[in-house]
């Protein structure tokens, strides 16, 4: 049966790859830099022939080598966040008998999403859609990344950044965003560890990626880019092509909603549908290696500079601000979580400090290029105790087995960061404000309450959307292969029963 499915899938893939190059490129993705886009700065006197307009056209801008170098580096940094950082962070928290299952799930899900991204994911997220679905999904112009490189001419298509006439090779953007899609899907795995079937993981994640990650990424991040905003008169038309949440004006620099709330809620839904681990609350199941967890947390911090500062899409001042905010907020959160734990529980723990770091990184993600240094201080210090509550008090209230606290850290931290971004974006609070893309002046901030409400709307929509899709995704996996392993398999451990290996042969 399985071989039949593999054969059919191969035939379909071959057929699609034959068709893909012939897909019309006439409807180019909105973010693509057109070759003749540079407006002629014509101040010519009237007696000059009309042909002067063509002669005065400036050559198309080419990518800045510093921008490209930084973005390629950032992409590699974000890859590192998934493998090995997240794998080790999660792996150290489970029992030895399940270590390999965690490493395997992260490693394979990461690879799976990169492949799906290259087939259809990038296209559906970051091209212009059509009709009623356009605020939610893109189109198929970039299926199999068609059009990003044209061998006949040696041309590379371009993607927009946050400055006019500042293109980035689109393939760089594809690769960068691929790592975001992949790590988001890997984050979910923390909630379902130690009892979910490997096959169920692959099915549920594929469905959730397609129906939640892609549309949320499109809604929040898809827009035409600054070059489309040529004058005030076109603003409404340009905005109408953007993703829904982007049209609302929600601020999400590197994925507080797209990555953290999206995955945090989905993880909780998966944990609820799976049920609690056998022996929870009665048998001891402490982390088998907080050493590994600390290594993972440290590598996450390291890689997150690519995640946040790379979301500037350029090697410039904004990237520096995002970098420093990421640095500072995380350090603040380590301290605030540790001190809160010290006061409440009596001893500051390594797991607490590592969790504080991750919470700080999560909360500063939507804020990194959207707040100033004061915002980084406040967000970092606040999210420590807030997420400490998320993994203790709130977790008790929810009374489910979100094993590695994906909801408590990523959803709660993501919501905290997303809401505080709206506040601390205010220039009066040291933030860079919102840019008017016609004039390129940062004077479009609507006001603290107004922006807060926009952020809250974005959080609410993503929360509900991902919960519904996660429910569907895990249910379908349950119907196809069954979600949970058998009791004796769970007791023996997933490494031997599902992967035929032992992590530690000491």
């Amino acid at each position, binding site marked *: 049966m399985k071989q039949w499915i593999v054969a059919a899938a191969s035939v379909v893939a071959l057929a699609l790859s034959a068709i893909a190059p012939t897909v019309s490129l006439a409807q180019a993705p909105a973010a693509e830099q057109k070759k003749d886009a540079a407006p002629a700065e014509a101040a010519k006197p009237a007696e000059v022939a009309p042909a002067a307009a063509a002669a005065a056209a400036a050559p198309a801008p080419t990518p800045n080598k510093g921008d490209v170098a930084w973005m390629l580096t950032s992409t590699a940094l974000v890859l590192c966040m998934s493998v090995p950082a997240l794998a080790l962070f999660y792996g150290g928290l489970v029992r030895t008998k399940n270590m390999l299952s965690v490493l395997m799930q992260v490693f394979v899900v990461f690879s799976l999403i990169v492949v799906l991204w290259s087939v259809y994911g990038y296209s559906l997220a970051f091209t212009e859609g059509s009709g009623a679905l356009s605020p939610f999904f893109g189109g198929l112009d970039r299926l199999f990344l068609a059009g990003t490189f044209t061998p006949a001419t040696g041309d590379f298509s371009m993607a927009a950044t946050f400055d006019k006439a500042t293109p980035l090779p689109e393939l760089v953007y594809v690769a960068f965003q691929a790592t975001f899609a992949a790590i988001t899907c890997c984050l979910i795995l923390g909630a379902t560890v130690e009892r979910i079937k490997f096959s169920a993981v692959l099915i549920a994640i594929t469905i959730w990626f397609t129906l939640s990650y892609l549309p949320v990424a499109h809604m929040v991040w898809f827009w035409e880019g600054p070059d489309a905003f040529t004058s005030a008169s076109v603003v409404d038309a340009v905005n109408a092509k953007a993703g829904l949440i982007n049209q609302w004006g929600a601020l999400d620099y590197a994925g507080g909603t797209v990555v953290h709330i999206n995955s945090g809620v989905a993880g909780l839904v998966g944990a609820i549908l799976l049920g609690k681990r056998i022996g929870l609350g009665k048998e*001891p*199941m*402490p*982390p088998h290696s907080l050493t590994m967890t600390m290594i993972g947390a440290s590598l996450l911090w390291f890689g997150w500079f690519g995640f946040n500062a790379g979301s500037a899409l350029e090697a410039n001042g904004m990237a520096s601000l995002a970098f420093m905010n990421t640095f500072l907020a995380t350090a603040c959160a380590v301290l605030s979580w540790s001190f809160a734990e010290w006061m409440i*529980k009596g*001893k500051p*723990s390594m*797991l*607490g400090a590592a*969790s504080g770091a991750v919470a700080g990184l999560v909360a500063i993600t939507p804020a990194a290029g959207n707040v100033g240094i004061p915002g980084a201080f406040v967000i970092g210090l606040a999210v420590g105790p807030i997420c400490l509550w998320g*993994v*203790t008090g709130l*977790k*008790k209230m929810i009374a489910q087995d979100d094993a590695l*606290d994906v909801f408590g850290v990523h959803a709660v931290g993501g919501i905290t960061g997303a809401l505080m971004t709206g506040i601390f974006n205010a220039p009066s609070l040291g933030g860079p404000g919102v840019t008017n893309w016609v004039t390129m002046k940062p004077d479009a901030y609507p006001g603290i309450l107004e922006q807060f409400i926009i952020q809250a709307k974005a959080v609410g929509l993503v929360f509900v959307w991902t919960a519904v899709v996660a429910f569907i995704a895990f249910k379908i996996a349950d119907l196809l292969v069954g979600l949970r392993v058998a009791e004796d398999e769970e007791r023996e451990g997933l490494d031997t029963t599902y992967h035929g290996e032992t992590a530690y042969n000491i």
Partner: protein
Amino acid sequence: MKLITAIIKPFKLDEVREALSAVGVQGVTVTEVKGFGRQKGHTELYRGAEYVVDFLPKVKLEAAVGDEIVERAIEAIEASARTGKIGDGKVFVYDLEQVVRIRTGETGKEAL
């Protein structure tokens, strides 16, 4: 012949070994074990999950000795393993029916 089993605090191992050597006990088998008696354990905290860990690490010593030195061996263990604080451990003495030295095939007291 007797088999003496002693459960002691791990850091006392070297002292006890030397004390046994001084009274003529030439061979000892040592195992790392966990256990508890009246000494309480400790609490560990991992985010929201609290674990009371009753078991404490101990060391188990086993020595096969001749009847004539059993009393001195027990005294040596007691004196060297004692700290006076709770959790010092216990000594158990079993009757030993047979002993064989594998290399030579010797049995009984010659094999001790």
